């Protein structure tokens, strides 16, 4: 009894020792900054030679962001709209590619390597450069007047993000490398005997996809949607986070206002993820452990 107790206590202490670096790191580089920035977002912060000077503003920073800021809400809306289109494009594309690669084909490794390459080589700067040089648009899309069609038929507030997406379609597809791998791993876990049984029973590949493949990779779809959302919101391709940085060093807005903007941004990510989880995760067979993340 006593020995068991000692052993358990020893396990507890060793466990804490192993995760201690994370605890320290979390407190120093996450928890404290979060508290600090939340606090700052309610202040006007001035950095003077004597140190940091803070004037309490209440919710004025947030009010200003929504009501008076000429750019923030607008940029945010454009970005959210484009993200709403980009997430399904990326996830469906990743699933399609994963299904193709998962077929019994040759050069499987080569194709996998091709589709993963962008994850390795693209930084925000490289993408921006390629985009500005026109390397990311396929001329066919423009030749058939799809853009004019969209412009003519949709209100500018929706046509703008859609056209933006068409123009950088390749770059958007580039963000699906990790998702393809996750789907591939998921597909490989589906029991191959089920497929055999289904095809003996005369199910067509089409039916097999909808009735067997899709339900069994459902958890991976959720994981991929979450990953894609976080990935899109945190990569430096979007104008919102550039705006936040811009405000950091503006005299009339400063750190306080910039952190307020960052918090609004985080809240939006949080709400979107919540919606995603509610819509796609309520299925009773969803098992977070299976999803792996």
């Amino acid at each position: 009894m006593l020995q068991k107790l000692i052993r358990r206590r020893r396990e507890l202490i060793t466990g804490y020792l192993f995760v201690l670096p994370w605890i320290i790191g979390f407190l120093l580089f996450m928890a404290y900054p979060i508290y600090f920035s939340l606090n700052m977002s309610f202040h006007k912060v001035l950095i003077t030679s004597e140190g940091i000077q803070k004037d309490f503003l209440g919710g004025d920073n947030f009010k200003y962001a929504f009501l008076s800021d000429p750019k923030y809400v607008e940029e945010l809306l454009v970005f959210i709209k484009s993200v709403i289109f980009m997430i399904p494009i990326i996830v469906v594309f990743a699933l399609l590619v994963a299904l193709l690669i998962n077929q019994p084909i040759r050069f499987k490794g080569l194709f996998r390597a091709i589709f993963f390459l962008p994850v390795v080589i693209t930084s925000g700067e490289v993408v921006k450069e390629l985009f500005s040089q026109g390397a990311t648009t396929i001329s066919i899309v423009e030749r058939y007047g799809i853009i004019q069609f969209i412009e003519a038929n949709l209100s500018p507030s929706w046509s703008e993000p859609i056209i933006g997406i068409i123009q950088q379609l390749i770059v958007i597809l580039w963000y699906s490398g990790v998702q393809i791998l996750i789907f591939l791993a998921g597909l490989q876990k589906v029991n191959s005997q089920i497929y055999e049984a289904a095809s003996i029973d005369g199910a067509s590949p089409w039916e097999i996809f909808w009735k067997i493949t899709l339900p069994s990779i459902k958890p991976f779809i959720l994981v991929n949607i979450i990953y894609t959302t976080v990935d899109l919101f945190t990569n430096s391709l979007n104008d919102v986070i550039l705006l936040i940085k811009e405000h950091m060093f503006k005299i009339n807005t400063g750190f306080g206002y910039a952190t307020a903007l960052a918090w609004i941004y985080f809240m939006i990510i949080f709400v979107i993820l919540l919606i995603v989880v509610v819509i796609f995760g309520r299925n009773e067979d969803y098992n977070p452990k299976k999803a792996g993340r």
Partner: protein
Amino acid sequence: MKKDNVSILKVVKAVDKKMIENIGYKIKRIFLGKKGNDGIVFKVFIYALLISIGFVYLYPIFYMVSHSFKSLKDLLDPTVLWLPKSLHVDNYIRAWNVLDFPKAFGASMLNSVLPAISQTVSCALVGYGFARFKFPGKSIMLVFILLTFIIPVQVVMIPLFLLFKQYGLLGSPLPFIIPALFAGGIKSALFILIYMQFFKTVPKALEESAQIDGAGPFKTFFRIIIPISVPAIVVVFLFSLVWHWNETYMASLYLGESMRTLPLMLQSFDLAYSQEYSSSGATDMVNINESIKLAGTMLIILPLLILYLFAQKWFVEVADKTGLTGE
């Protein structure tokens, strides 16, 4: 006699029909397959789709390679589409000088290798702790880890910036290294989870036998667990390296003007170009053009391309090698 003939003819016809049917069936099977996904038609379709998607995927890279070798004349010549008339290496020489390549490469190395090593080690320890030991507060900590994954860095960057400024760490790689030492920094939540999933697949008997031999938990970890965890370690290191290398948002904030990594140099390429070449006399006055910029971009991703060439299998097998997707 006539009757016989007719019946033979009938038989022959029947056999013929059967044979034709048989051949037809065989042909059908070759083209369409038995199960619907192993026929030639299907295969051709799959390959065509994969190759065309792959081409679209690689299009920007092909475009970049092709254009970066074009001289100004080729660039303006509409008949030159993909293959430049001559390999114009001068673009690369100029881009190399503008980027100040050796120095920027060194800065990039410092800012990616050191944080990557720190992250690889610290996340391994933490991941092992979470995978193997029970202690109160573990589940809430895991929730916090997931939270750090979704919190955008913008929320915490200003306090961190002020913190690092206070201790005079700005302008050095330390703002990246120090959080990485404490299992923080770029996408550390992901790395902890990768390790956790991996360590869970390691049979417990290994540690138990080491413990019976009298090894403590840390000795067991370093002597037994680490040597068999090479796949997870390599994967985490490579991803950490690449993501640190490509990071520009925080890098420009922390490093400022004193230290500029390769992607940061690309940010100010135009300005640097005019400084480098407009003052150096009229002999090599070549205005900046897209070929030179693309050559610069090419130089920036070249180290990563080379790395990918050698370590490609580690990257693409991340999910298989680490048991990331759970068992």
